[in-house]
């Protein structure tokens, strides 16, 4: 029942992939599509590094005793897992790969507004990444990705300053990407592409960029303060001089809570596109979905102290932040309901991208609903800093963000590579990822309510936690296989996959109106938009079937 169509390619057209060859044509490119591929390669690399750490963590926890690695090593493992996955995979993942590739295509622009800044942002990412790798290979960091003072500033003797600088540099890469998107979306839209005709993917990326622009600088300066306190012995957070360690947490979470929306919002954008295409419908409540993205971006900045309910903040402040946390849950709920309603009376296809979208819906719903537990003050006290939190954010960030990322990679792979991926394998991989994920992380909710604290490498005092940990480790193995599969068949399809037509899914959106893969300047002639987004009615109307669609 695959919708994807292959067409015999007459002669090779010139496109962004074959226009020039050679290493320098890639390393000095300002073409947003090539930069997207540079990002794709780099984040995949970091994803597997972070994944390797995760696997070691899970293996250590297979038995209650700390027998696989030393305590220090374990602490570095979860720290590096967090830092690599968050700053070098999740935050750049969808924006820097799919966003970079698709934002100009979707709005009918020839490129992003500042192509050279776009390249610069990739280089900054690589510099940050190399620093992080160097830091990991020469000793690593053991503070957890949260860098809490005064442990990070005065007590640990690991490489805080270097890791901090790596994140600082990567942060600027993220800021520049956001800046480019905001300016591009404001200034570079094709004639007729009004705000209410924008694909919701663009709205999601616009909201993401707002967070990147306004949040990242705060964490950057916080890292500067930590590094200064450590390296130059300034006193900012040090309680010995009268400093307040909670101030660090305020500044840190001001960015790091909205940062989870940097990770999930683009994924929501991807899922919106996929659901519209594979149910052949306009998104139900377009404006509500669009504005809920902006609402999430804004409300996301109002809730950071819900990470600090037991940290010693004022109880009245806790009350306010708990209340506001429910305010940010609402736009997410609205999105879920609108996606569900979009399915109603659709004509639903079960291709791999849609399977990932279904997976996203399920896992994000569970992740979001468990967020309600965590924002309830009374329960938060018991479950914060336990595996309940670990499970909750992995449901959002892996179940949500990574499912969306993989769905998007499958959906746009024909456009990116000009080739079709093997549909059967892709569906199998989607299934394996879904099962492996739930097996890994669902037991952790139970572990958390049982009281197992996070960041413990040795739980020999509480052997009753072992069964659930074994389940989780088994799931992680399945999940690992699920993540390896797509990499293998995507690589395979680049050479052996069937050539894709310009619009293999018969999808709406400007990106499908140009060649697969697109030419260097995206469109042979400047597009003029006269239709609303998701015009599946016209696309599926009997008279418009000039291109035979094999169903």
């Amino acid at each position: 029942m695959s919708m994807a169509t292959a067409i015999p390619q007459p002669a090779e057209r010139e496109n962004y992939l074959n226009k020039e060859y050679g290493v320098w044509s890639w390393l000095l490119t300002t073409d947003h599509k090539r930069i997207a591929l540079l990002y794709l390669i780099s984040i995949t690399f970091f994803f597997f590094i972070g994944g390797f750490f995760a696997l070691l963590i899970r293996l250590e926890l297979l038995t209650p005793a700390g027998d696989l690695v030393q305590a220090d090593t374990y602490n570095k493992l979860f720290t590096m897992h967090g830092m690599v996955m968050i700053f070098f995979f999740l935050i750049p993942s969808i924006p820097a790969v799919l966003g970079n590739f698709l934002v100009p295509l979707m709005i009918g622009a020839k490129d992003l507004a500042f192509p050279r800044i776009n390249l610069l942002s990739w280089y900054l990412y690589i510099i940050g990444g190399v620093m992080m790798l160097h830091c990991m290979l020469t000793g690593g960091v053991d503070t957890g990705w949260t860098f809490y003072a005064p442990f990070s500033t005065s007590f640990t003797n690991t490489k805080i300053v270097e890791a901090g600088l790596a994140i600082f540099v990567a942060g600027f890469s993220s800021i520049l990407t956001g800046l480019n998107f905001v300016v591009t979306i404001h200034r570079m839209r094709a004639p007729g592409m009004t705000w209410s005709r924008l694909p919701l993917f663009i709205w999601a990326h616009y909201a993401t960029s707002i967070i990147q622009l306004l949040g990242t600088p705060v964490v950057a300066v916080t890292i500067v303060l930590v590094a200064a306190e450590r390296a130059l012995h300034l006193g900012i957070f040090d309680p010995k001089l009268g400093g307040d360690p909670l101030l660090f947490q305020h500044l840190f979470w001001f960015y790091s809570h909205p940062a989870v929306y940097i990770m999930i919002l683009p994924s929501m954008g991807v899922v919106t596109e996929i659901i519209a295409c594979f149910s052949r419908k306009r998104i139900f409540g377009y404006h509500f979905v669009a504005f809920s993205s902006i609402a999430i971006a804004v409300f996301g900045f109002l809730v950071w102290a819900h990470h600090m309910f037991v940290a010693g903040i004022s109880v009245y402040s806790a009350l306010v932040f708990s209340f506001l946390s429910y305010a940010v849950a609402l736009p997410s709920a609205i999105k879920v309901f609108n996606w569900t309603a979009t399915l109603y009376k659709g004509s639903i296809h079960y291709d791999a991208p849609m399977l990932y979208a279904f997976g996203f819906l399920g896992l994000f719903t569970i992740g979001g609903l468990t967020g309600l537990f965590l924002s309830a003050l009374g329960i938060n006290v018991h479950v914060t800093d336990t595996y309940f939190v670990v499970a909750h954010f992995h449901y959002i960030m892996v179940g949500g963000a990574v499912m969306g990322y993989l769905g998007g990679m499958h959906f746009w792979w024909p456009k990116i590579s000009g080739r079709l991926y093997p549909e059967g394998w892709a569906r199998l991989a989607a299934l394996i990822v879904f099962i492996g994920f739930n097996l890994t992380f669902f037991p952790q909710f139970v572990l958390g309510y049982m009281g197992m604290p996070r960041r413990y490498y040795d739980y020999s005092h509480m052997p009753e936690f072992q069964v659930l940990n074994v389940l989780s480790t088994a799931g992680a193995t399945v999940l690992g296989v699920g993540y390896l599969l797509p990499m293998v068949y995507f690589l395979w399809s680049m050479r052996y996959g069937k050539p894709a037509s310009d619009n293999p899914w018969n999808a709406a959106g400007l990106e499908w109106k140009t060649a697969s893969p697109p030419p260097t300047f995206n469109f042979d002639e400047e597009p003029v938009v006269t239709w609303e987004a998701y015009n599946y009615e016209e696309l599926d109307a009997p008279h418009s079937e000039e291109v035979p669609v094999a169903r």
Partner: protein
Amino acid sequence: MPDSTVIGLHHEEEHRPELLHHFAEPQQQRDAASLGMWVFLGTEVMFFGGLFCAYLVYRRWYFGDFAAASKSINMGLGATNTAVLICSSLTVVLAVWAAQTARRTLLIGSLALTMLLGLAFLGIKAVEYKDKFEEHHVPGASFSFDHVEIPGHPGEYANPRHAQMFFSLYFVMTGLHALHMIVGLGIFLWLFIMAWKGRFTPEWNTPVEIGGLYWHFVDIVWIYLFPLLYLIDRHP
């Protein structure tokens, strides 16, 4: 911002070498560059915002100690530096106007004057730092702030540990500001060379304009730093 200034190559727009290939028309390119700089300044607001947040929390907690520490900084130098920066903002705005109205001498002169004023600012700052170093007010092992009276509270001495926090914030805030000044000087040196070569015309002067925006922003940061750091409690 360098993007808007590059001499690109293109097919249709031979007569307008500044127009990059992916823009449809010069106006679009100009608007993009300007919006880009404004958005960047927005991120800068948040960058300094984190510092201001830390400063405000501790100033509320340790007001007397902060006032005593603040009194030890040279207010005269701070006020002079404020005036220097305000003058440089004037020369910047003159440079922008000169570029728009094709007054080449005024443009080059204003840019040069701006750089001179910027250097003067950094020079005065260096003198201040030197004084602080000699007075052992630089946080660290040699820090000393004993028996300094809290303004308005005779016989009461500032807590040296809290004073050290003030100086930590003082050095981080003014240091990051000075770093921005140095970046600004780099930008203006480049603008100066471009102006010398006669690249700016009334039709194309976006770099001067957005470089000026950056300079003004750095000025605004100082306008807040001056009273916050130098003028906490100066009355006799």
